[in-house]
């Protein structure tokens, strides 16, 4: 992989930073006024409310991500309209940096992503501790334009750049007993302010069945829109499993482990009645607190898009032949 410091970012991709900042200040000011004047200090948490915050985002993280070279387009991509870089990098669920949708953009800059090592171990013949470069370099980068369907019933179309997870896993030579793969996010509370809170049990962990992990649609993403990932999107290395709800696509991965039994996963640990291990996009199986039958394709106002089984990736259906997906939600 060739990573070059960005001097040749297409200007169309980047909002002029000064305009951006001024605009944000204006909104923050307006929000502050509305908050402070209407009820004064009578009401708790006025300024901390996530909705108010989402309208008053902070300064952008540095737009100078490195450009990725030799990215080849992949056939499995969708040609649906892509979300803008700004949408994809300003509206995130990454609880390690706070619960507000804009918190990751605000605070993820504190996370150091270099150097970065990834430990691959467990039931495999070639366990190793890779530097990120060594993990990624042997593989050709591919652009994969995927739909991302969040369990919260919104969706985006995102041009990822990544490598097939199967290629990385094969290098480690999984043993016959390995039936699942467990992933772990970086745990570094000093740089990840949300990890001081108890929203979830840290570090974040996720898992896939080995055949799901080996499926050609499953990738490890290192980039977005032709450039390396922003921290709020899970830099420097994240999973993307397009037929599952977004939270399965674990961010900022530091460990990949082959295991025999189904691993515990963060959201399922937090609320097993609402989040299962499989978490396949499924319009037939509602979240206990809301319907999953439709979705808002952001930035649309209306949830006018019908959610499709497996998020429209029918080619994975055979992985679940004979399984009751109501039981294995």
């Amino acid at each position, binding site marked *: 992989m060739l990573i070059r410091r960005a001097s040749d970012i297409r200007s169309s991709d980047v909002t002029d930073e000064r305009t951006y900042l001024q605009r944000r200040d204006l909104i923050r000011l307006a929000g502050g006024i509305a908050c402070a004047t209407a009820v004064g200090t009578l*009401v708790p948490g006025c300024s901390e*409310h996530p909705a108010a915050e*989402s*309208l008053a985002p902070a300064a952008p993280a540095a737009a100078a991500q490195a450009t990725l070279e030799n990215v080849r387009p992949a056939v499995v991509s969708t040609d649906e309209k892509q979300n803008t870089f700004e*949408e994809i990098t300003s509206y995130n669920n990454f609880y390690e940096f706070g619960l507000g949708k804009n918190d990751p953009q605000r605070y993820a800059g504190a996370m150091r992503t270099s150097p970065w090592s990834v430990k691959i171990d467990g039931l495999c013949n070639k366990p190793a501790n890779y530097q990120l470069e060594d993990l990624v370099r042997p593989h050709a980068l591919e652009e994969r334009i995927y739909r991302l369907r969040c369990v919260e019933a919104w969706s985006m179309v995102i041009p990822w750049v990544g490598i097939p997870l199967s290629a990385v896993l094969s290098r480690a030579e999984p043993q016959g007993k390995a039936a699942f793969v467990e992933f772990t996010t970086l745990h570094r509370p000093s740089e990840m302010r949300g990890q001081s809170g108890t929203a979830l049990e840290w570090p974040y962990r996720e898992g896939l069945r080995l055949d799901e992990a080996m499926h050609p649609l499953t990738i490890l993403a290192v980039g977005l829109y032709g450039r390396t990932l922003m921290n709020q999107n899970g830099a420097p290395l994240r999973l993307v499993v397009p037929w599952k709800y977004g939270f399965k696509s674990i961010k900022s991965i530091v460990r990949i482990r082959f295991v025999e039994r189904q691993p515990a996963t963060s959201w399922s640990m937090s609320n097993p009645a609402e989040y299962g291990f499989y978490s396949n996009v499924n319009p037939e199986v509602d979240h206990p607190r809301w319907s999953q039958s439709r979705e808002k394709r952001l930035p649309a*106002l209306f949830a006018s898009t019908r959610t499709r089984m497996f998020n429209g990736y029918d080619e994975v259906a055979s992985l679940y032949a004979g399984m009751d997906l109501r039981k294995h939600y």
Partner: protein
Amino acid sequence: MRRLVKPLIGVLGVLPLVWLTFAVLTGRTSANPAEDIILTTGIWSLRFLLASLAITPLRRLTGWNVLIQYRRMLGLFAFFYACVHLAGYLAFDRFFAFDEVFADLAKRPFITAGMVAFALMVPLAITSTRGWIRSLGRRWQLLHRLVYVSAIAAVIHYLWKVKADSTLPLRYALLLAVLLGLRLWWLRRRLPRPAAAAPAR
């Protein structure tokens, strides 16, 4: 001076809406403007509801009886933002699929709680006019005690809605508990005490 207070509250009351409209029209919302609209109007409805519930305790504590003049306005703003909040859910989230709305109401306690909070506000808004107050007489006050139930349902709706962190809704719950607790406490003190034993003669 005092004549200016009501218009001022009116202006401040529409500010969140003005700000929201401005943000939506100029693309200054998050990538999910519908969510911004629904969350912002929901929270402002709850804030106005609690503000209207704060009038009576404030009046008692400060002796400023003039405050009572502003209570209806606060209550109507609460109702107004609840209307926008509900309309946003029906239009944006459910895309007017009313079969899905009824399914939500039956299956999802947090939607049920929100709808209860809203439904109870409807008769209160309707009977908030001078004519209704006069014709209902003492029953008006009785009817408008429904606001306590509505506020409790609204806080429950908020609590059950959040995915992982209940800190904010709990703060609102606490504030509501204080506002209602004060009333209970005053009510108890006003109840006739058991008569002191008659002095022996």
